[in-house]
């Protein structure tokens, strides 16, 4: 099982909790950690389940709810805001036919806000599946989203 392999690789000590959770979540198409997985990690690392859960809920890249294969994050901080990030959210909501925070019914995309992703000199910026895209506008967004759809 993938999760056990990752635990084995990092070692069964509490300080490896975060690398284990991050690496395992990254290899799941659903981008989240389930209750069973939390229980297993707690057992293997010999720590309480609530410690695993609180770590997941503390870090915004980790999730306890199923998400899409590709997570589309829109930066909402001031440098992007003053360069129209609000419109980028509207465009994405129309293109993906979901609201901010939701996942498309085919499980491909989740739309999220993110804190600053360090692309302020090419704002408004977004991050999809870990990749950064800057100077966004409606046309560029349409092309990028289409590329990810075609990957399916």
């Amino acid at each position, binding site marked *: 099982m993938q999760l056990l392999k990752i635990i084995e690789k990092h070692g069964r000590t509490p300080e*490896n909790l975060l690398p284990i959770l991050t690496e395992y979540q990254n290899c799941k198409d659903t981008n989240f950690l389930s209750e069973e997985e939390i229980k297993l990690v707690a057992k293997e690392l010999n720590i309480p389940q609530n410690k695993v859960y609180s770590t997941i809920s503390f870090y915004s890249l980790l999730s306890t709810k199923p998400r899409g294969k590709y997570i589309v994050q829109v930066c909402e901080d001031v440098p992007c805001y003053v360069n129209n990030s609000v419109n980028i959210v509207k465009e994405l909501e129309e293109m993906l036919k979901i609201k901010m925070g939701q996942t498309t019914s085919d499980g491909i995309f989740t739309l999220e806000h993110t*804190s*600053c992703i360090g692309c302020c000199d090419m704002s408004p910026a977004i991050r999809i599946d870990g990749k950064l895209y800057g100077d966004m506008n409606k046309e560029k967004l349409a092309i990028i989203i289409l590329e990810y759809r075609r990957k399916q």
Partner: protein
Amino acid sequence: MNNTLIKTVLTKNCGKIDPNSIDDYINAGGYKALQKAIKMTPVQIVEEIKASNLKGRGGAGFPTGIKMEAVLKINDTPKYIVCNADEGEPGNFKDKLLLENDPHQILEGMIIAAFALNIQEGFIYIRGEYNQSIDTLNTAIEQATKKGFLGNNICGSSYSLNIEVFSGAGAYICGEEFALIESIEGKSGRPRNKPPFPTVCGLFNKPTLINNVETFSNLPFIINEGAKAFTAIGTASSSGTKLVCLSGNVKNGGVYEVPFGVSVRQIIEELGGGVPENRKIKMVQLGGASGPIIPPSMLDIKLDYSEMADLGLSMGSGAIIVIDERFEMFQILNKIIKFFKHESCGKCTPCREGNQQMLIILSKLENGTATLKDIKLLETLCNVMVTTSFCGLGQAAPTAIMTTLKYFNEEYTKKCSSQNAKV
């Protein structure tokens, strides 16, 4: 563009060498400083860095040499070295530039510092959002180990050091040094009480040298060229160069390396080309979300630790965010405080509750239902947060509000209608 404003010390290799090639870095003079340092004594290295007047570039501006001396003098082992690459302050992207373009310069700086303090184990904590930086640094570590600059018997000496990349997982608070340390230890990133400082009781409760990416990147130059060459750049109180991150409503945003002493106006107008379509500047935020907001009349202020401190301001980690006249001040403040509400770790009440209460008052100000009493309450909240928050996050969160209360006070009173004006 005015080229006399630019001074390339840290960014000299950026865009010129392949960051994935250690040979490129060596051919550009890389790892010479390390070879020189290995022949120096620990005290000589620390004294050179002290004499350079290098101050921490992560925002606090604490003298790097003094921090190193503290770790050197402590009689406790093992000691750790940590590079803080958890750049998450909105408006900052200068560490990303160094991480992605010159990873070996960061490593060389870390190895020099670790050698001086006889440290055998180090971590580079990179925020999870910077996947490319994580890959680049992992490649650089592998290459440096193969060449004998890391691992056992560095440069043929008896000294050994291992450095590991640790990925964050999306938490701004982990840029705070103790929260970062807790995160490496496998916990939620929440700050610890200070003192003791990390130099005494840091990672795994052992003495720890923790510095920002840009700070470590300065060390190869200081060792190669000497402290005097470093203090020759900049001003009397602020030696060397600073990477500034220009963003917002400006034509040419980006990272610029400037000597200290350059004014904010020069950076915005001469390097950044000013505001698009000749719109007027409404305000400028310095340092990032936790930094002060100043009006256009103050743009001649110089990048200089003491000049800024005299005015009660700070440059933080170097962000300059330009906001033009189209924007309402309260929209911007709302975005800033929302950020802190989201990123507050929840450990202490002033920060957890304070940001939420400030947001409520800000929305009243936005929709015109605020009274003068609300403004008084906002001032009180700011003071409570600054004086009683557990860590720098809560202490700095109200900076934008406090500075706008000072420099844009009429906007606050204007928003209280005459009917609401009674206290």
